[in-house]
């Protein structure tokens, strides 16, 4: 069993959640090319390591939230926005 920590409800069984996929920055609607939209909608980088993901807590608070999860070990952590901004630079 995998425990996932919901920012509202705390650690819960992962069967309470629905995986929302990797989350990427959304392209600007007025400037993006069709290729960028296709990449955003249909492609995931699927790294072996830390991945920023969306989850939905359907059996609990019914909220969407973003976390970082290590795809190899299933460790996860709340997103540190400052670190995420540095990584994007």
């Amino acid at each position, binding site marked *: 069993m995998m425990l996932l920590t919901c920012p*509202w*409800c705390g650690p819960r*069984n992962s069967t309470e959640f629905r995986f929302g996929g990797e989350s990427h920055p959304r392209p600007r609607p007025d400037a993006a090319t069709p290729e960028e939209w296709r990449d955003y909608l249909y492609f995931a980088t699927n790294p072996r390591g830390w991945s920023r993901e969306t989850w939905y807590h*359907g*059996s609990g*608070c019914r909220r969407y939230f973003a976390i970082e999860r290590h795809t190899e070990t299933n460790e996860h952590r709340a997103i540190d926005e400052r670190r995420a901004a540095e990584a994007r630079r």
Partner: protein
Amino acid sequence: MSDPNTPTPNAPTPIARSPIAPINPRVENGWEVSDARSTAALTIADETPLAKVAVRAPFAGAIAGLLGVGFGRAARGPASLQADGLPEALVVGSGPGEWLVLAAPGTSPAVRQRLEALIAGTGEFASVVDLTHGRALMRLRGEDSPAMLAKVCAIDLSDDVVGNGAAFRSSVARLVTDIVRDDCFDARSAGAARGDGVRSYLLHCERSSGQYLFDALLDAGAEFGIEVTGSVRAAG
């Protein structure tokens, strides 16, 4: 005088029915309720007739302050709701920005109007919906109830995590259920004089799953000698 349990075609008021089939049904407050009475150590009671009103409002706004409980807590009150002779209500912080107000059977229009008046005074964007007939509610009562719930629910129910007055939503027997720990302090409770209540949980789910949850809990409680009783409030 005709039998009140037999609805007649020209009955003045319709009879509301819980999704959970009652034992020896009789009518009380316009609801068909179970006449069963049990003094077993572990009991389950159908509390669906209680008025259930849901409130959605900003997480930490003026309405949240008026309701007086945050996410994950439940409390009787608040004084702002009890004006105009309304009975005591149990306000449950059932989700982030989501509350459920439970009150005596038949009071849901009054509770809803009172909540709407309170909300109108704040100017915040909020909604009040009467869920009385859309949900099922049951009460587990007895010292064995956490051991029994542990069979069907993954949450740690120890006092440190889910103390009296705690509320959460999780999966119970694979069903999304709101759980409120609301210990009983009535005269029948051993230790009521000392201030210790009897362990009790309110379980609240969609109406269509009510009978399933009730049967699943009866099944889980069989080894603890669970018995069905009528409303605990009325029996107390």
